[in-house]
């Protein structure tokens, strides 16, 4: 396959297909993933081509999905579980946090649970409540889990395959509002390590750290700032646990200014962790404190006011400005 232009949704679908082809132990399971192909069609056509044994429509219970995936993993399978929306992962929280995350440790490495938990996450699609959550901090704070998120089709295609091939249990967050955004996917492109961040747009003035749905927002801000003569160094974290902050440190040592952007509430979020570590590593380089542009510390609001809640280009630029005023 040469490079193709695909939506993120289609790139993920293709990545899943490759994973199913490559390893007969890979199974996809979740609500409506079979005949329907998932409510976002990310598993579209997979049951038809790989059968009901490999792409499994499950009963409607998230704890059951993850709990039985653990059993399947113990039996040698590599389950890829779809949670239909971010807000519906919580019934499975116990199985994820107390079982998936801990089994390798408590067995002193004798048990591996190569489970991928796919979750469409984040807001911006005008949905009703529980359909726009950003639960990444809950998982990143949980030792034993790894957490990644993709921001574009090329990464989505590669990362979903890497996640499935990994023996670590991985929460794979998909920025649902970006499912329809297009980008080039080159199946032959050289691979990068799954848990690596990437400088997406270089710039010398202010370091902007983002991930998932907010990378697009950060890039738009960078374009706007560029027009005003300020160059933003935009870093896409990709991996939320473990964090790969070396490129961020390098950048901040040059820029002296750092803004972190995410949709999740600010309080005890990823932004806090990044701010704390960047400050510790780059203490004498910082011209101003690391600033956070995030969702507010309220529940996710009604669709008609979600734009007010979500970080946007202007709020990013405002924070960039504030790193100068300090």
């Amino acid at each position, binding site marked *: 396959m040469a490079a193709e232009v695909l939506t993120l949704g289609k790139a993920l679908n293709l990545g899943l297909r490759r994973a199913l082809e490559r390893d007969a132990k890979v199974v996809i399971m979740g*609500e*409506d993933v*079979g*005949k*329907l*192909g998932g*409510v976002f069609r990310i598993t579209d056509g997979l049951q038809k081509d790989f059968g*009901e*044994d490999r792409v*499994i*429509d*499950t*009963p*409607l*219970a998230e*704890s*059951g999905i993850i709990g039985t995936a653990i059993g399947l993993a113990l039996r040698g399978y590599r389950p890829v579980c779809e949670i239909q929306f971010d*807000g*519906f992962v*919580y*019934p499975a929280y116990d199985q994820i946090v107390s079982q998936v995350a801990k089994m390798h440790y408590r067995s002193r490495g004798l048990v591996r649970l190569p489970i991928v938990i796919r979750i469409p996450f984040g807001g911006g699609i*005008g*949905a*009703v*409540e*529980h*359909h726009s959550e950003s639960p990444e901090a809950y998982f990143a704070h949980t030792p034993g889990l790894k957490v990644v998120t993709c921001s574009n089709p090329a990464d989505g295609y590669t990362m979903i395959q890497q996640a499935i091939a990994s023996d670590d249990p991985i929460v794979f967050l998909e920025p649902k509002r970006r499912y329809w955004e297009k980008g080039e996917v080159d199946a032959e492109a050289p691979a990068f390590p799954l848990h690596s961040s990437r400088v997406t747009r270089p710039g010398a003035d202010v370091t902007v750290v983002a991930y998932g749905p907010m990378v697009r927002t950060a890039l738009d801000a960078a374009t706007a700032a560029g027009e005003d003569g300020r160059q933003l160094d935009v870093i896409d974290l990709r991996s939320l646990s473990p964090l790969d902050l070396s490129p961020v440190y390098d950048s901040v040592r040059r820029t002296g200014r750092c803004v972190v952007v995410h949709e999740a509430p*600010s*309080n005890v979020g990823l932004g806090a962790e990044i701010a704390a570590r960047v400050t510790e590593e780059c203490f004498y380089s910082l011209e101003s404190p690391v600033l956070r542009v995030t969702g*507010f*510390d*309220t*529940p996710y*609001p*009604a*669709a*008609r*006011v*979600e734009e*007010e*809640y979500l970080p946007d280009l*202007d*709020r990013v630029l*405002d924070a960039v400005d504030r790193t100068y005023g300090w």
Partner: protein
Amino acid sequence: MPEVAREKPVAQDETLVQLLTPDGERIDRATGPDGTEYSVDFTDDEYRDLYRDLVTVRRLDAEATALQRQGELGIWASLLGQEAAQVGSGRALRPQDMVFPTYREHGVLYCRGIDPIMPLSLFRGVDQGAWDPIKYRFGLYTIVIGAQTLHATGYAMGITKDGKVGGDDGEAVIAYFGDGATSQGDVNEAFIWSAVYTAPVVFFCQNNQYAISEPIERQTRVPLYQRAAGFGFPGVRVDGNDVLATYAVTRHALDHARGGQGPTLIEAYTYRMGAHTTSDDPSRYRPQAETEAWQARDPIARLATFLRRQQIADDAFLAEVDEEARKTAVHLRERVLTMEDPAPGSIFENVYPHGSPLLDEEQARFAQYRQSFEGSAY
């Protein structure tokens, strides 16, 4: 895991409680699996009222679907096909009873005498379904599957604590949920709690045969109403497209609960004639023939046939009901179009009864930030 053949859209179960056949034949009395006898004794006016409810509820639902298509609602979860299950059970409630709905109980809400506009702000995205559940004796719409069944059970435990069970004026609770919801741990825990505490709650499961794309066989191998016995309370399957039987069974279960006899599980056997929501495309997962077969069991048509045959209603009445319903729907539409968007800054309100300094600060900063744009070209 082969796919189960779905040839019999209609429950062939002997135990299905029915008082009005799909052809509009009235059955005098029906017997439930535990021998309970069900019947209704309605006046002509009451029959006509039921018919009016069914038609109005369907018409309002169609209006909401249209509003969504026109971009006026973000999404809509249609009750098409489930009108009898909702009107029958909704009308069986006494004023003091409490309802815990899912996101599809527009018909029950209507039967409670609540303005049908109430949930539309939720689907429009103006708010998240912000009403006072106690005032309306109608809980908040609940999207997380099954969660409300535990709330219903706890509320019912509170009724017992308050000494409001045991007499005819006792209170009861009804918890609505779907066939898919029966797989959730929470729903099964609600069964356990309600049995252990003899809570006055009726579990009303609308088995509309699907949880989005998944047919009922993905949730159970045996009829759902049978689940109850193993938890220690009665279960009954009623023809959910038969408004009379649904009324009779629900009324009986509610009175059983309010009398201090504990919970009942009602499985209202029905069919979701439309899509799961306006975002769904059922042609991907179910055959047209199946939907057509269920058309023959339409809950409104069968009541109309009965009313005509019994000369309780004539063409003029039916036409008048349609016209009234149309007007109600037009009125609803007008009011949806003029719904106000939430005030800027309101996203910071009502996070906590006692507020939070963190939020006050965020709100103040945001207001300041907003002001910085004022007068600017932006």
